[in-house]
């Protein structure tokens, strides 16, 4: 059942791939804009590169998360899905996994932009990919739940970031710090503890949001 839900959401994303591309361009544009806030100081830009990458990803994530439920609202598709003999939990995990996939893709696609613009390359690709996977998982779990709520409310464009941003402060903090350590060097071996924090956040929110999602959509 989960697989069917996941397949549906990936199919949905594939059919609307132009949107993903648009969000990617939005993210790259924000990366370009951040550098204007700092000025053409190569050293400072390199130091802040990781933070900028995660801010760009966070801003893009509100677009991509909101989009993911937009399609379900059209012609009351969500109500139809809930009538199927599938549990709401399977629908949630399908949606959250698909969103995670999309956000991870965005994150990985933004890395080359960051490297080119900020000269912030690293040879430790494995660790970088790992942090992007962990961090985007942390954005996707609560983000999917909040997108389900806000897509049905008034002023949804404002509400989603308003609710999501304070909540994912630990994710932003840990991912930015870990990415920064990967880029700039990690003499104290701190990346491990930051990724551990991300793992904890992911475990807590992937289970908690899955438990609560049913209540959000079923009433």
């Amino acid at each position, binding site marked *: 059942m989960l697989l069917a839900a996941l397949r549906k959401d990936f199919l949905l994303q594939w059919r609307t791939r132009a949107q993903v591309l648009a969000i990617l361009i939005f993210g790259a544009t924000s990366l370009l804009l951040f550098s204007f806030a700092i000025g053409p100081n190569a050293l400072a830009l390199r130091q802040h590169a990781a933070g900028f990458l995660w801010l760009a990803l966070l801003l893009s994530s509100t677009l991509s998360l909101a989009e993911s439920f937009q399609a379900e609202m059209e012609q009351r598709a969500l109500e139809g899905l809930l009538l199927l003999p599938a549990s709401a939990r399977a629908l949630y995990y399908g949606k959250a996994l698909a969103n995670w996939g999309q956000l991870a893709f965005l994150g990985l696609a933004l890395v080359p932009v960051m490297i080119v613009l900020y000269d912030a390359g690293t040879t430790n690709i494995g660790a970088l990919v790992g942090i992007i996977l962990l961090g985007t998982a942390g954005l996707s779990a*609560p983000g999917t*739940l*909040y997108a389900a*709520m*806000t897509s*049905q*409310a*008034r*002023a949804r464009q*404002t*509400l989603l970031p*308003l*609710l999501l*941003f*304070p*909540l994912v*402060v*630990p994710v932003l*903090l*840990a991912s930015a*710090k870990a990415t920064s350590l990967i880029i700039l060097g990690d003499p104290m071996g701190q990346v491990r*503890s*930051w990724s551990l*924090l991300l793992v*904890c*956040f992911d475990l*807590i*929110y992937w289970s*908690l*949001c899955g438990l*609560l999602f049913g*209540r*959000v959509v079923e*009433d």
Partner: protein
Amino acid sequence: MSADRQGAVVPYALAALGLALLAWGSSWGLFAAPGETYMGDVQRIMYVHVPTAWNAMLALTFAFGCALVSLFKGGWRWDARLEAGMEVGVVLSTLLCMQGAIWAKPTWGVWWDWDPRLTTTAVLVFAFAGILVLRRFVDDPVKRAVWSAVATIIAYVDVPIVYFSVRWWNSLHQVQSSPETVSKAFHWPLRINAFGILFLMSGLIGLRTRLAVLRLESELAPPLPPPAAVAPASTRGDR
């Protein structure tokens, strides 16, 4: 209506008692208690700052409890209490940040510092204020109750995670104040103010709950029949 009025007596009395205690404790702290050796008079803000911190956490924890009950047991009253507790908690946490900034400027030389407790409180203010905004933008009372309860649980669980992540990230704050870490001469004004704010807060939560209940009643009440349908019948009766 008279039952409504009577219900309001207790919160008003609590709030009045709280204000009186707060005035007593603060004047004691401001004029009678000895100044602190290193920080001087600046330290006297502690008499409101520390009790505000305790009570802000208490109010938000109350809101969290209400969210759990409202989500798993149901009941409109708990939804009203959730709204009241959260609103009072957000106001207290905002005051807490402001007091902290006022204290930090002469002591550390900056208004803001990225220490774990200060930062966590700020994140908390935004997280819970967001939920209050969410409540405003959802018209269906059933959805509003469920969603704000879910969002409250999610945000409350985040508080310790934010705290520890910021603590790893940066640290510089006084060790948490409790009667044990504070000299004996400072105890009484601190305690009186703590209870003062506690009573004031309970009174405000009580009043705000009443307001929320009244609002819910007017939302949930079946709509009155349109005036056109009523008017002819009554005029006929008069004749």
